[in-house]
């Protein structure tokens, strides 16, 4: 994945020299080395995943998944959609800090986080199409001949769609800069604030909405994870889930794409991570406090001394309380190692939490438990790897981590 050529900046079109079409075609060629360890691992998996996806549409869902009549939603919903969208929460938190609180110091994070969020929605919400038994009818709730407006899923589906548009608008100035489209750039930049406000509003509703999907499955979810407050818990945890992802992804990008990042942003990055760790710790404290309130309110003591109870304690203490303290300690001692460890632990905690609600704690009393098939896992990896490929393609071409072209700064 490491870029080895000496050209440090992305190539952007100079409107005077090149036509848009010629430029686009020249941009399609791969940049950077082809045989990197990441490519060698991901390419065969993607290839296998594509074959499995074909089998899935050819033979039906049962051919590749272990889903049953009792457990109709498995890894693809529980991990790809529910967990993936939580990790994409960084986009609304960072845009909130930068555009709403006017904290300019996080500005260098905006583009890459929004891009990450946008791609996460495209790919992980897109993975939903794989899970639909009758995907050709996906248009029904959108074109309006069948508005099931009382459905939480209707709300979530529309929000995904609208939020993708909002994120595309937020990101579009980067595309305009890449294409050298100065007029479009001007118009699109004006729309940013509106898109941000709209996007944050949508995020509060669909991050919680993903939790609300499980509200009607009251008796099916283990009582330690079911509560009427699932939507609130999902929303609050999406704040630190997203920020942990920003910290994690940022640390990797800083190394992999180091030649794209200017000296100033390179230096300020550590400071940004330290500030973010404080926000993470704060959000996690609120989340932990909420969990304790719910635990007492719902009288869950009786479930504590069981296998699921230990698993619950491990999640709450090992993957919420401890990373929260690590974030706080990392902030106090300005230790990046602590902060990165905390971010990884938090991300594992989010995966565990979302899977506990959607898969592990779902139908927990059934004697025959659902476990994803290797094919479901390969297809999930395919979705993730393809997203990383597209992400890398864009990073190497558009001014996401690198600076905007000179004409943009002149306009400002």
């Amino acid at each position, binding site marked *: 994945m490491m870029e080895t050529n000496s050209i440090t900046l992305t190539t952007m079109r100079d409107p005077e020299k090149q036509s848009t079409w010629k430029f686009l075609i020249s941009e399609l060629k791969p940049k950077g080395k082809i045989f990197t360890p990441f490519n060698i691992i991901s390419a065969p998996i993607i290839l296998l995943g594509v074959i499995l996806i074909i089998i899935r549409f050819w033979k039906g*869902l049962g051919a590749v998944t272990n889903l049953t*009549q009792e457990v109709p939603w498995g890894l693809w919903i529980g991990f790809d959609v529910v967990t993936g969208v939580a990790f994409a929460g960084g986009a609304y938190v960072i845009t909130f800090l930068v555009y709403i609180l006017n904290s300019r110091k996080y500005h260098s994070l905006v583009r890459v986080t929004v891009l990450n969020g946008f791609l996460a929605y495209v790919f992980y919400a897109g993975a939903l199409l794989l899970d639909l038994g009758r*995907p050709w009818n996906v248009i029904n709730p959108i074109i309006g001949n069948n508005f099931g407006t009382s459905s939480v899923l209707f709300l979530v589906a529309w929000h995904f769609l609208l939020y993708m548009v909002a994120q595309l608008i937020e990101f579009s100035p980067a595309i305009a800069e890449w294409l050298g489209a100065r007029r479009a750039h001007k118009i699109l930049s004006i729309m940013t604030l509106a898109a941000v406000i709209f996007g944050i509003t949508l995020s509060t*509703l669909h991050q919680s909405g993903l939790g609300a999907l499980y509200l009607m499955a009251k*008796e099916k979810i283990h009582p330690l994870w079911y509560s009427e407050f699932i939507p609130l818990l999902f929303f609050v945890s999406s704040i630190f889930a997203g920020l942990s992802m920003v910290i994690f992804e940022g640390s990797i990008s800083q190394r992999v794409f180091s030649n794209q990042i200017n000296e100033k942003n390179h230096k300020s990055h550590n400071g940004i991570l330290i500030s973010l760790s404080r926000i993470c710790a704060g959000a996690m404290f609120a989340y932990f406090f909420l969990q304790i309130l719910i635990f007492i309110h719902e009288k869950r003591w009786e479930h504590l001394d069981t296998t699921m109870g230990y698993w619950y304690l491990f999640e709450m203490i090992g993957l919420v309380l401890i990373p929260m303290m690590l974030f706080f300690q990392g902030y106090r001692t300005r230790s990046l190692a602590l902060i990165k460890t905390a971010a990884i632990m938090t991300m594992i905690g989010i995966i565990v939490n979302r899977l506990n609600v959607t898969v592990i704690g779902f139908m927990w009393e059934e004697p025959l438990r659902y476990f994803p098939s290797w094919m479901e896992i390969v297809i999930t990896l395919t979705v993730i790897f393809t997203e990383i490929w597209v992400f890398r393609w864009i990073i190497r071409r558009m001014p996401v981590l690198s600076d905007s072209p000179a004409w943009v700064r002149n306009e400002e």
Partner: protein
Amino acid sequence: MGLDRRVFMKTLGLAGATLALGKSTGMASKKDDPTEFLGLLYDSTRCIGCQSCEFACAEAHNLPEPKDYPDPEVVRKMDENRRTVVNAYNTSQGEAYVKEQCMHCNEPACVVACLTEAMYKTKEGPVIWRADKCMGCRFCMVSCPFDIPKFEYHSTNPKILKCDMCYDRLKEGKIPACVESCPAEAIVFGTRRELIKEARRRIHENPDLYKDHIYGEHEAGGTGMLYLAPVNMDKLGFKTNLQNSSYPALTKGFLYSVPSVFVLVPALLLGIHEATKNNHQTEDDGDE
């Protein structure tokens, strides 16, 4: 729910008309009151476990005939090939049978879950599934407290299968196939109100035979399918931990918050944005 809205609009319209035209129209509104849901009353004490209902159901819906039979040792389940099953249980009152199928809830979770209105509560009461609308997301299966809807996992054009109270037969003026075929008169078809009255009468006349409980009268907010049994329903493989309020009520609070979030949050965000506009300089060297 589609029906509630319709009823509401109708009532609203009729109320207006009544005000304008006087009493006579008000009487008309009572006559075509569509809230009288149809339902089935199943009496476990009468059932002989002969599976006639299963065969009739398979025939009515072009499904393969059942090959196994009720056995206290095994729990038979509905699947994509059978919409109803009869199970046998050893109870304190001897061997007892119980028929399972869609409960046709008054306020069905599956219908509220459906974002394409493919799952649909008809005004007559049966909950039906409409192929041309369904996108196969299986949210109905996740939401149904009775785990009724089944999905064809091994089909490229999968359908959701469940009992539809023979809705097509009802439209032709016939009664559901299982009711018609039952030689023991264990299943009665009628309006839910009549059935509850009938069930009460049976309990009253034979208090020793029946448990004093009509399963489905209150469960999950009331269901179209009603059960009488000699023992508690949990002895017959039924869930008794279900709530008595309707399942759609569980998401009501969340859905009701949506409009207020859409009004309040953007205004709040814009306000904060304006208030912090001039903070650039101080924030830049902030807490670092």
